[in-house]
């Protein structure tokens, strides 16, 4: 694969990757874009390690998720620790004006989930990834992925019933 072909592939994958990171970062699109740039540069430099056992997008998502976890660790927060509502609001206040109040429902619905649960939920419902792909991206065993999804499902159902989305 040439450099240009790699850039073309990245151009196709950048949107879902940035969307996933943006949702993980609580709507902070500039932080998400910084993480996406970091992840894609890492992918460019380590492309030789890509063995083709998973899809290219899965490999990119894995690098991006690792970058996100590293940034959380650097900020002194464990990725498995649930985000509190106050922290969620604080995160949102750092987001740029255009994205600050957009998609609040999604962030509010997932506010009491741990970051691992959030990641699993976003990958499953937002990015339509399979359990196997989620296992490859997050490194969480498939059984744990299923239990995270089950918990997230309960939370989302409860949230939807309490809000305008109630069926």
């Amino acid at each position: 694969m040439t450099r240009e072909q790699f850039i073309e592939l990245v151009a196709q994958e950048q949107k879902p990757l940035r969307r996933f990171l943006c949702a993980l970062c609580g709507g902070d699109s500039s932080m998400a874009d910084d993480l996406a740039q970091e992840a894609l540069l890492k992918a460019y430099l380590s492309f030789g390690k890509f063995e083709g056992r998973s899809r290219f997008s899965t490999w990119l998502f894995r690098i991006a998720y690792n970058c996100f976890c590293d940034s959380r660790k650097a900020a002194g927060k464990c990725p498995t620790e649930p985000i509190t509502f106050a922290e969620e609001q604080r995160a949102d206040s750092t987001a740029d004006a255009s994205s600050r109040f957009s998609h609040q429902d999604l962030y509010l619905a997932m506010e009491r989930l741990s970051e691992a649960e959030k990641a699993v939920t976003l990958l499953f419902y937002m990015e339509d990834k399979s359990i196997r792909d989620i296992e490859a991206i997050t490194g969480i065993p498939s059984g744990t992925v299923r239990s995270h999804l089950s918990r997230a499902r309960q939370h989302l159902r409860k949230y939807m019933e309490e809000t305008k989305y109630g069926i």
Partner: protein
Amino acid sequence: MASEKDIRHFVKHNMPRPENGTAFMEEYRRSIDLLPVPSSMSCRSPEDIDSSIAALKKAAGTLKKRSRITAVAVTLVSIAVLLWIAAAIGSLHHDLLTRAGAFISSHRFFIIVTFAAVVTALSMIAAKKSTSGI
């Protein structure tokens, strides 16, 4: 109660929609322009790499052969010069050869040791010079 389909619809309806994809990719392109091209993207097939290795081996072989020929030629020339000097001295002073022969036979032990020491010293200097560039 919300179904699986409703949850998926809710997430998709509320998901963030990143903008400025072109600007993002331009920035990415600018960043990777500053980085070296990884070997995995250098457009070189395994055949190209093999042929480059073969060409390198061939060049190294040619250099070795040339050095060997030069070394043999220098040795032959120095022996010829030595013999010519010995012959010249012998023709001028016949008795000098006899005396030189007697001297060599009486001091042969010292001559052999000196010769071995000189050869060892020269080879060590040569080895040191050849490895200093690595």
